[in-house]
């Protein structure tokens, strides 16, 4: 059980870090770009919101499998196969949780408007410098929301993980899979315990997020 909890936390942490590194620049680009295909990218990013996780997992499995061309390319690049490994889980989770990170951050960048960046430029800040010293702090409440949602959503995922990671204890068996496993094997006690932990965890995460977001907003209003 401890294995599953640790693995879940590790997966959620790695996924959130990757999501922030990719999601913040992506959200900025989506917020500032005028090209029509930025909306196509935004739609692709949002797809996991509506697709059943199994569909997503299925396509990812096909895409990453050693019998497909992209899968073979990735395998020759990184030296191992992604499906049914921890790295594969991270890839799946990143895709699956992307909209929960990108959307709030993009909204925060949109709400900020052009003015603060213009002011920063007239105060001699280069675009990159202004991005870090003005855009990121002003979007902090959106970034916080994105971080928490990305983390929590990764902890709670099931379908994608099952499709792409399977059920290997210590390697790909995360909490949600473990619960499913306990139920399948009629181990109700463990299923109860883990489910309750998840429930309390989720409740606390969302509560803390709401409270701190409110405070951040008040400070910047």
């Amino acid at each position: 059980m401890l294995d599953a909890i640790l693995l879940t936390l590790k997966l959620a942490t790695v996924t959130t870090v990757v999501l922030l590194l990719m999601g913040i620049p992506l959200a900025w680009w989506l917020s500032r770009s005028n090209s029509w295909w930025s909306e196509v990218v935004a739609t692709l990013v949002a797809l996991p919101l509506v697709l059943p996780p199994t569909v997503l997992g299925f396509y990812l499995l096909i895409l990453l499998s050693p019998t497909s061309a992209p899968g073979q390319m990735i395998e020759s690049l990184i030296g191992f196969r992604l499906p049914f490994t921890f790295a594969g889980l991270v890839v799946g989770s990143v895709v699956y949780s992307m909209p929960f990170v990108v959307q709030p951050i993009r909204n925060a960048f949109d709400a900020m408007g052009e003015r603060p960046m213009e002011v920063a430029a007239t105060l001699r800040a280069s675009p990159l410098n202004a991005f870090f010293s003005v855009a990121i702090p002003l979007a902090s409440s959106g970034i916080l929301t994105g971080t928490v949602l990305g983390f929590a959503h990764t902890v709670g995922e099931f379908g994608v993980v099952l499709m792409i990671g399977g059920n290997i204890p210590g390697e790909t068996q995360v909490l949600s899979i473990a619960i499913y496993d306990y139920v399948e094997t009629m181990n109700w006690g463990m299923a109860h315990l883990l489910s309750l932990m998840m429930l309390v965890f989720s409740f606390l995460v969302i509560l803390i997020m709401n409270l701190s977001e409110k405070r951040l907003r008040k400070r910047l209003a």
Partner: protein
Amino acid sequence: MSLYCRFKGSLGQFELDAEFDLPESGISVLFGPSGCGKTTLLRCLAGLNRLEGQFDINGETWQSDTYFLPVYKRPVGYVFQEASLFPHLSVRANLLFGQKRVKTSQNINGYISFDRLVELLSIGPLLERSVVRLSGGERQRIAIARALLTNPRLLLMDEPLSALDSHNKAEIIHYLERLHRELTIPIIYVTHSHEEVSRLADYVVVMETGKTVAAGEVNAIFTRLDLPIQHDEVAGSVLNGVVAEADLQWGLVRVAVTGESIWCRDTGLELGDQVRVRVLARDVSVALKPLVDSSILNCLQAQIVEIKDDARNSIALVRLEISDSEGMQYIVARLSRKSISQLDLQVGQNVWAQIKSVAVM
């Protein structure tokens, strides 16, 4: 002239076609009705908008057909309509944001230290506050100080008073007049307010639907009869003068204006003060002889230099010159066409200009 610019092109639906020279110091005002392209032009000067053109300042090129210096590399201070302070930073951190990003040498011409600027704009007590708890006037003062702390070679101000209530407006104008005396760098100031031009401008560039239509000294431009400014109900002339005499009994001061005297209400002026007197065209009337039994205090000897008489209109404009050996200044009078005909007013004629009310700016 040490500042030259020319911009031509369109932004969305808007066409801009502007060209002017400006003096190397003092306040130059871009003046015109809302939507005439003043702000766009100012943004082009800062590099915030990019249109084809040329911009040279003190022998340095910031933009040409083949070159464009990006905003953050231009030594320019920009004050936006709304103060636009960074809400995530304290007042002090806002002020230092630009300053710490420039390498400033204290020896360069026009350098103003942090402490001096804090004193000039009276922002000492605000330094440790959060920007969310400032009044409109306080915010704008911080924004002005923040822009000046980058030690710019040109200060651009986009209607800095328009978002303020009248109390805060008066406060900022007072500080702007202070800065005007203290700063050696040129200031380009955008406004559509006659009052702000009269008080602040040394030099005016008049704009109309994206084009620059006239540029020159305030008195010369504001008394030109061919410009649409004259249609404005509050159109008037601005005269430069010196306080020459105080009449304590009646609370008046005499302002000497190129050989003539104008009596104004004493608002705490000192003898020898340089002042601007604003005379609205609708408050000026013309007589062939000085009136003796009249309540009007100010009656100046002037010469008619131009009459603009439009047969479709009952009103005509008359440009009057007052002069002495030092130079000349102009006043505009708005008269009915009937009066002009009855008095048989002609260009070159000497008349008496009666001024019903004047305002010391």
